[in-house]
């Protein structure tokens, strides 16, 4: 079962990478008032259904893929 994890810097966490991207987009002439840079993790999970896959992936996020102090995560199950 395919799953995607989106890991984002939490609100209020200074994200210098996002700031650099925002500034670079400004130099290209785009009008952007905020950019935040996170991570995408694509997974192929062995699970019998979407519910089980979601439970597993959320545990992966809690234990390894995201650090709760600084990052939030979102799980997408693609079936």
């Amino acid at each position: 079962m395919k799953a995607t994890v989106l890991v984002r810097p939490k609100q209020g966490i200074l994200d210098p990478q996002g700031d650099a991207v925002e500034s670079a987009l400004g130099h290209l002439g785009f009008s952007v008032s905020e950019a935040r840079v996170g991570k995408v993790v694509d997974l192929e999970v062995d699970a019998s259904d979407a519910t089980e896959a979601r439970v597993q992936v959320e545990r992966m996020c809690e234990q390894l893929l995201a650090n709760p102090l600084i990052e939030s995560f979102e799980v997408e199950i693609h079936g």
Partner: protein
Amino acid sequence: MASPQPRVGVVTYPGSQDDRDALWALAALDAEAVPVWHEERELPDLDAVVLPGGFSYGDYLRCGAIARFSPATTAVCEFAEAGGLVLGICNGFQILCEAGLLPGVLLRNESLRFVCRDVPLVVERDDLPFTSRCATGQTIVIPVKHGDGRWFAPPELVRELEANRQVVFRYAEACNGSVDDIAGVCNERGNVLGLMPHPEHAVDPLLGSADGALILASLVEAARKRVLALI
């Protein structure tokens, strides 16, 4: 009777870089420096452990995130739980934070630039096994070399750490954007310390500073006392 030589382990992960410097510095400060391989599930008989700098497991995902699950790190966590002395330097500090032995997390430097230079540090407390040779308020000079050294914790956690006196070293000048210029913190019990600067690179005047020896010699001395207590 000659004073006993304490055994201080240094863990080598794939990607560790400063393990040999740490072993050399500890031996120069009269410890028996013991290399520990990351696959070891049980630590040899040790009086203290150092987690060195570098880029363990390529620092993939987040610095220290993978090393946290290595067999040797699990053994180090048990060692710390039992009251053993553990010092994490740079990547070692990142690993200890990811493992939950120390509070906070280390993020990309505010400047996005790798910073590599000598920095002045203020010692916030001298009553720890790692700082007994320093004096509270003293400024020592030790090099940093990191791209991900910006220590962060939410404000309520920082207040709690300040109240518990867990902030041990502070940059005397802005370095990487760390909250309150925090360079090193300890756990509540005071037997685990992590810092971004590298004391093992400053143990001889030929290296530009010998101030790092104040920290490592404190550790060796504390480890020696533990050996003596067992005799």
